[in-house]
């Protein structure tokens, strides 16, 4: 008691986790030696694999494909029951039958990012050169690397132009990277609660999370997999800290206030007296059941390095010069991780490029997480944007 040891241990074994890493319960695209993934760090990653899910049917024109990009701790299971947690798809408010992104109208693709741990090649995968888990020997990856890999998957699926690329948070970064790197392949882009670069404050929070992981003695310099253990305490603390940044003061107050957890009076101990403590511990412990600690280090690093303007001579508008893509940018008033000012900077750059852009700031007290929640105004806007783009694309019903 008194430290995070009171976080329950994960319910599944390390073996179960590693099974999803190498043999995901989803579709997998394998890329052999003839198709290496050229990484920004200069390494050619080969062979590698991308785990992905699809929903709906690709139409005859191949014009109705929607790529969903997941956030830091998401995966390809956007609209189906998760194979590890048994929970519904992580974006069921937006994606699914009757939702704004309905498999009845669109061919929906969602892939696990490179560096992830749900079946796409990452630090938890087996390095074929050594037969051991990659660990920290895995090359550092970037958001552009993730998008380059997705483009290879889209090629493999025989799709030239995506009708829409959609994502929030780190997923939104991928959306923006798609439009900057492959403007002609993206008909419309829905970028939610994101930014064109990671702020100093966000890098600081990520560093906090990484240090928590690395401070766990079970981390073993990243080599925990060989020992059959997982630094779940460090990773849980990282998740707890991060989770606070996804909420807001108002949301925490509304949800928990200073209410006690299953007790009337303080215990005068470091037990989880407050509901908010209990909630955070639960968030931490449930996260480590499905996520790899090294993967968390790599993906947070990729977000830290993200800066579209820096890749275009420091001028953001240059990244979107003469772009034909239709943009919809959405931010949330209480999101202090990716505040509206970041979206506004993006919109200014898009205006300077004469891009077609809609920008809505949604009023909510639910913080950064709002993009994953049932926020009707956001969902209505997403639906209308895609319908309008679908009309321009000549899609039926969209």
């Amino acid at each position: 008691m008194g430290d995070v040891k009171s976080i329950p241990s994960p319910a599944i074994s390390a073996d179960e986790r590693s099974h999803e890493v190498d043999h995901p319960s989803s579709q997998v695209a394998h890329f052999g030696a003839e198709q290496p993934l050229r990484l920004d760090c200069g390494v050619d990653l080969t062979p590698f694999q991308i785990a992905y899910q699809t929903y709906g049917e690709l139409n005859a024109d191949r014009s109705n494909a929607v790529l969903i990009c997941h956030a830091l701790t998401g995966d390809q299971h956007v609209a189906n029951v998760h194979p590890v947690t048994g929970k519904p798809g992580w974006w069921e408010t937006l994606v699914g039958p009757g939702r704004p992104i309905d498999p009845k109208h669109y061919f929906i693709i969602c892939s696990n990012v490179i560096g992830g741990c749900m079946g796409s090649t990452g630090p938890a995968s087996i390095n074929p050169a050594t037969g051991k888990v990659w660990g920290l020997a895995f090359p550092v990856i970037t958001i552009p690397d993730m998008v380059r890999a997705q483009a290879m998957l889209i090629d493999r699926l025989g799709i030239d132009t995506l009708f829409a690329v959609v994502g929030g948070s780190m997923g939104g970064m991928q959306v923006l990277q798609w439009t900057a790197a492959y403007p002609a392949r993206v008909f419309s882009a829905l970028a939610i609660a994101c930014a064109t670069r990671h702020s100093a404050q966000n890098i600081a929070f990520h560093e906090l999370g990484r240090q928590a992981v690395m401070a766990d003695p079970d981390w073993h310099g990243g080599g925990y997999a060989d020992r059959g253990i997982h630094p779940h305490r460090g990773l849980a603390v990282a998740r707890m800290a991060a989770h606070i940044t996804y909420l807001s003061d108002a949301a925490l107050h509304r949800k928990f206030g200073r209410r006690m957890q299953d007790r009337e009076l303080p215990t005068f101990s470091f037990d989880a007296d407050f509901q908010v403590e209990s909630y955070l511990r639960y968030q931490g412990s449930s996260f480590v059941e499905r996520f790899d600690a090294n993967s968390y280090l790599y993906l947070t690093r990729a977000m830290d390095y993200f800066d579209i303007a820096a890749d275009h001579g420091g001028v953001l508008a240059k990244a979107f010069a003469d772009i034909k893509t239709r943009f919809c940018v959405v931010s949330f008033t209480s999101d202090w991780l990716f505040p509206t000012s970041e979206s506004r900077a993006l919109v200014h750059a898009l205006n300077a490029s004469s891009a077609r852009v809609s920008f809505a700031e949604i009023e909510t007290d639910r913080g950064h997480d709002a993009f994953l929640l049932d926020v009707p105004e956001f969902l209505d806007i997403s639906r209308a944007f895609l319908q309008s783009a679908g009309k321009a694309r000549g899609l039926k019903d969209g």
Partner: protein
Amino acid sequence: MSVQEVLPLGGVATGQSGDFRADHRLVAEMVKPGSKVLDVGCGEGDLLQLLETRGIDGRGIELSREGVNRCVAKGLAVVQGDADTDLVNYPDDAFDYVILSQTLQATRQPRVVLENLLRIGRRAIVSFPNFGFWKMRLQLLIGGHMPRTENLPATWYDTANIHFCTIKDFVELCDAINVKMERSVALDLYGRPIPLNLPWWVWNMFGEQGVFLLSRGGGK
């Protein structure tokens, strides 16, 4: 001109879909089909929707979040922004037309805004309530009050309209900053255009609002 219907000018579009405000119809008629248009202060997007029906690529800026979100929920390309501060982000000649409908009087720097409109757009269409309208004059002269009308009902202390002008004032501003008036229409209280052959002072007296199609003067 087909704007003979009796419609409330400063009000909102009538309930039935397909019905558009008289001044919006007049503005839309000034825009060549197929052009690219920016509507500054686009409200809830009524004018943009009208332009869309005419095959025009319309974009909008709107100050109020509610207005923006309603526009975006209609599938319109509208961003939240301020005419005074955000027009600088747009490059020269980005649009064929930039429209400022019933918004000039609410800007902090009408002259700078007007200059920006004609930098961003090859043409600008500006409409505004005419403070020289006889009812306005009468309220100040006889009543001794700052004028209020059905279309501008706010009191002096809570109005967003901080830079009222008359048609005559506006014409002088256009001359001063070398803006060419390609077309000018004054609409009376009922949204009807005042006959062209009447002298300026009649427009300034009986025009409830002015609608101007502007382009850059030759001297620039």
